[in-house]
């Protein structure tokens, strides 16, 4: 009897548990479906509002961009009332900036600089979220008339833990008319290991202001940076090579002094960059001294830099040096030297004939380089 009551209770309990679990599952399913529908509804509304805001603001933006007289950028401000309006309008402005330049692009930058956007991005600079800080720095890189206070805020970002934030902040600071400010930003980035060489090169190009007469000051500050001991070696090499493209001729003497004083003797990459840069400037007076010191250097990279320097000079006077380098044990040095000899024209051809006799194994390589250079 007792046993049957127990069995009955067990069965009742099992039914009770099954029903309870079914109810919980049903409730969870219902909750998930309702949440998904609510999320979709809210998201659709957000997207619809996003598109609506873009459509609403575009005519105002176009009016300001093209009807230039008596219009103020703040006219767009009336369409940006709440925080929810910022992203659609900002995305629209960035989208336009991507594809156009010139006067119209300047007008769009003026809209970007309206008070509400400035205040919003100022807050974003101190956000805990790294992406927000990057977005804020990138915003400032589009603004034409940054104030001193805004530059100071950006300078604080140079001490950020994220290299992406540092790079974005430095890029924004490069619009500053103040050379010292720009060089500090460049230095802050060059100190970081994980920054790419391309990023350094881009920043260096931004550092140079083509429309201002600041060449000498820029060059002088750059020289201080090169001499500073906290810059990463590969970044330093990139900066030195970048000097060629910008054309800071006034510091070439100083660069040569660096070579002479052994500044880069234990840093192969830097020495290579210095030799390359001097060659690109066609600075003939010091070339003999460089060749004397480094043409037979034990490091192939340095011997190749000598050949590269002579390739830039295109001077038949250095034919014998190139002939010697063209017989180097290192293939990359030989290739560079043959290119340099081929660039000398008929005078180089005589050396190449000698080279073919001396090292017939290189005949094919020589012929292909000569035909490539001749075609060019």
């Amino acid at each position: 009897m007792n046993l049957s009551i127990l069995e009955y209770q067990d069965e009742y309990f099992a039914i009770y548990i099954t029903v309870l679990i079914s109810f919980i599952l049903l409730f969870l399913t219902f909750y998930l479906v309702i949440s998904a529908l609510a999320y979709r509804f809210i998201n659709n509304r957000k997207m619809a509002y996003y598109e609506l805001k873009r459509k609403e603001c575009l005519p105002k933006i176009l009016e300001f961009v093209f009807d230039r007289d008596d219009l103020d950028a703040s006219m767009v401000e009336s369409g940006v009332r709440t925080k929810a309006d910022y992203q659609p309008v900002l995305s629209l402005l960035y989208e336009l900036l991507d594809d156009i330049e010139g006067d119209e692009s300047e007008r769009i930058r003026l809209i970007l600089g309206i008070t509400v956007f400035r205040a919003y991005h100022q807050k974003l600079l101190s956000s805990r979220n790294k992406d927000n800080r990057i977005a804020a720095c990138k915003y400032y890189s589009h603004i034409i008339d940054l104030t001193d206070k805004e530059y100071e805020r950006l300078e604080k970002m140079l001490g950020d833990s994220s290299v992406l934030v540092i790079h974005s902040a430095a890029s924004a600071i490069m619009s500053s008319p103040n050379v010292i400010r720009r060089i500090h930003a460049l230095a802050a980035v060059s100190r970081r290991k994980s920054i790419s060489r391309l990023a350094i090169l881009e920043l260096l190009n931004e550092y140079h202001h083509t429309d201002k007469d600041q060449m000498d000051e820029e060059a002088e500050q750059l020289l201080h940076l090169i001499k500073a001991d906290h810059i990463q070696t590969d970044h330093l090499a990139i900066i030195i090579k970048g000097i060629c493209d910008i054309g800071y001729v006034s510091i070439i003497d100083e660069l040569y002094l660096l070579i002479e004083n052994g500044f880069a003797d234990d840093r192969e990459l830097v020495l290579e960059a210095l030799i390359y840069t001097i060659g690109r400037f066609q600075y003939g007076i010091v070339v003999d001294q460089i060749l004397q010191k480094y043409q037979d250097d034990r490091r192939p990279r340095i011997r190749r830099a000598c050949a590269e320097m002579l390739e830039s000079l295109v001077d038949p006077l250095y034919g014998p040096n190139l002939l010697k380098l063209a017989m180097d044990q290192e293939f990359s040095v030989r290739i560079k030297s043959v290119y340099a000899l081929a660039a000398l024209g008929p005078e180089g051809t005589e050396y190449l004939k000698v080279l073919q006799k001396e090292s017939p194994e290189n005949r094919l390589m020589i012929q292909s380089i000569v035909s490539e250079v001749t075609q060019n």
Partner: protein
Amino acid sequence: MEEKKRILLVEDNDSIAKLVKYKLERDGYTVEVCVNGNDGLESIKARKYELIILDVMMPGISGFEILQNMREIETFRDAKVMMLTSRSREEDLARGFKLGVSEYMGKPFKVAELSMRVNKIMAE
């Protein structure tokens, strides 16, 4: 009253399309916009335009495919076409000129320059 000259702009970036349309309409043209290649091709077949401005990079049919399709049809063999392309894609230039493109504009472009080039093509 003289009828305004018609331009078709095929550009998938809606905001850029509106900006160009705004400028060209102020220059005195009638501008129709298509935001994808398929619609662009349909419009070209349906109406006559004095100039067709094509963006090269578009989802679906690219600007080049539209151009190639157009050139295969006798009526559109001589239609004037301007292409908008990214500056870094120099290979597009050669391909476009082979297909008889009248003008190229590299992105990012100056709107004033685009307007000037359109005026030049229209005056020819």
